[in-house]
């Protein structure tokens, strides 16, 4: 690996830019064009039921959006969903990763089984949970509850958001497990031995060596998962359809309803812009959090 000399002439850099151009261009078209169109529609008076009544609407869509209580419900649901799913998947993923990092008989099979939910498509996940597990009549959960003499719970109507959280967490815990497990396996054994000789107990070993080692990996897991959780749609579509009422309507589902049930392209474009803003706020918080962590780390 010979790095190019630091004083590489501009002549040598020029082709780099030209070679990068196609991919940058592609990315621009792929991202900027849809974003610009969404932004454009959000300022248009555009309802598919009244295709003739087009025109500039100013901030009307945004006014309608911010005064719509369902939008605020959807926003709250989105945040709740992301936060709880993150908490559950990261904690459960870390616990499972620690478990699967130990040696035991049949570990290979157990690992494969533990990771398998990740390969199930979101819609299928929704259907599996709706019919096989949560169904109050012939679902597995209700069978278990009945067999210990309890009244079965109407999961999807009594605890709709919790049900959705369970489905998404079930699907995504393997992802956290997989990434955290690779992180654990890259931890040098001699560091653990050194810390044991230094007098650390199991908890201190975890707190001072394992957790800092996983820092970067945890960041990757949280970053990727929050992006995916923000856009959860299929699980909700296949099970609760955003209900009962607005109990499980998150932002993506709200946008879907606006576009394909009210046919209001203007309003749902405005909501989409809201979702973009929300995603960016998340990203900023995460980057701040990570930067803060890195600084704190270097001060130690």
């Amino acid at each position, binding site marked *: 690996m010979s790095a190019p000399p630091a004083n590489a002439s501009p002549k040598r850099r020029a082709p780099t830019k030209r070679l990068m151009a196609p991919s940058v261009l592609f990315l621009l078209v792929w991202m900027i064009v849809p974003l610009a169109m969404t932004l454009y529609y959000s300022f248009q008076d555009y309802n598919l039921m009244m295709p003739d009544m087009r025109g500039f609407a100013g901030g009307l869509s945004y006014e309608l959006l911010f005064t719509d209580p369902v939008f605020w419900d959807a926003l709250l649901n989105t945040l709740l969903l992301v936060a709880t799913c993150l908490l559950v998947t990261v904690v459960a993923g870390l616990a499972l990763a620690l478990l699967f990092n130990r040696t035991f008989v049949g570990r290979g099979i157990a690992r494969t089984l533990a990771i398998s939910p990740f390969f199930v498509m979101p819609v299928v996940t929704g259907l599996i949970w709706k019919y096989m597990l949560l169904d109050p009549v012939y679902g597995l959960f209700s069978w278990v509850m009945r067999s210990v003499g309890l009244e079965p719970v109407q999961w999807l109507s009594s605890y709709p958001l919790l049900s959705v959280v369970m489905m998404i967490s079930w699907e995504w815990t393997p992802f956290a497990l997989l990434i955290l497990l690779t992180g654990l396996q890259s931890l040098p054994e001699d560091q653990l031995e050194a810390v044991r*000789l230094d007098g*650390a107990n199991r908890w201190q070993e975890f707190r001072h060596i394992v957790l800092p080692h996983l820092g970067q990996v945890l960041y990757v897991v949280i970053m990727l998962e929050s992006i995916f959780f923000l856009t959860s749609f299929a699980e909700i579509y296949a099970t609760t359809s955003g209900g009962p009422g607005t109990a499980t309507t998150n932002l993506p589902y709200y946008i879907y309803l606006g576009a394909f049930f009210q046919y209001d392209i203007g309003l749902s474009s405005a909501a989409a812009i809201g979702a973009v803003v929300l995603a960016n706020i998340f990203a900023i918080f995460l980057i701040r959090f990570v930067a803060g962590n890195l600084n704190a780390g270097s001060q130690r």
Partner: protein
Amino acid sequence: MAIVELKGVAKRYDSAPGRKGNDHANAVEDFNLTTKDGEFVVLVGPSGCGKSTTMRMIAGLEHNTAGEIRINGKDVSNVEPRDRDIAMVFQSYALYPHMSVYHNMAFALELKKTPKDEVKQRVQEAARILDIEHLLDRKPRALSGGQRQRVALGRALVRQPQVFLMDEPLSNLDARLRVEMRAEITRLHRRLGVTTFYVTHDQTEAMTMGQRIVVMRDGRIQQIDTPYNLYERPVNRFVAGFIGTPSMNFLQADRQGDTLKGEGFSCPLNPRQQAALEGGGQRSRCWLGIRPEHLHQVEESGGRGRLEGVIEVIEPLGPVTMAQVRAGETLITAQLAAHLDVRIGDVLTLAFDPDHVHLFDIESDRTLGLEAYPATSSAQATA
């Protein structure tokens, strides 16, 4: 300060499939050693001889499957590593990458809830001894290999443990730094007087640093002795060949009266050697061992041992020149004077003093007549 006793210590790995090193059912067998207080003991041997395993058993990182390990009389075989009050320097240094040098060194003390002032004072003190005061704020990744090595030593030092363990701590350094750190560790040990175990595969390191050296092979102790005694009175052919560079030459010899003869050489036997060959039944054959530094180029050997062969390789080292000489089937290394006028292909006549010759049993490889060798007091050797 501590006396470490190992009594019949053994390590047996279950031959689980896929497990490393399961072709050796016993990694260490019947290890017996009692250190003096503050002694510097070196464990040396070729790779896979069980020296590291022995050290890891003392540390508690491996469980001894038999025998007892006592520190100051207390059996620690079932004591957790963290309660043994032992500090270890790892070959890879095993510094904590996310902590500064200061925190790396202070970590063990902080776990023990040592008062902040004392921690600071002890870390500063260790940093001063090792000359790394200016590095305390850095992260390990911003250090060079030699600096990391010092931090790893410092981390062990601040703990003021009963026993130091060092597992090939110098093997990742370049040759010059290694010689420097060798002297530094020896100085440190003299200053602190903590009982130290040092593992290495490098016999030069072992000879220069150890007060006593344990030579191991295939999980078994071959000899425990002072550096001087290991060189002068090796108990068997393995130790004789392992200690000293270049290695001792071995020749198969037939006894003819009071002379040993073989391809290209002959050696008169002194009375001590004759007695050794006759002890435990008559021997007509044995191994003759002679070190390269005891071979001299001569025209006439005159009553001394004599060896003749064709030069195959010449390696000028500066102060001396090494020559590889073929005598019959065997390749002999001889240490010659620096500016010798010899060429590859020349026939070389070498002479040696019969008193420098070591004799080994042809089958068991044991040294013959060891008890009759001039004994050196260990006090003289360690001084």
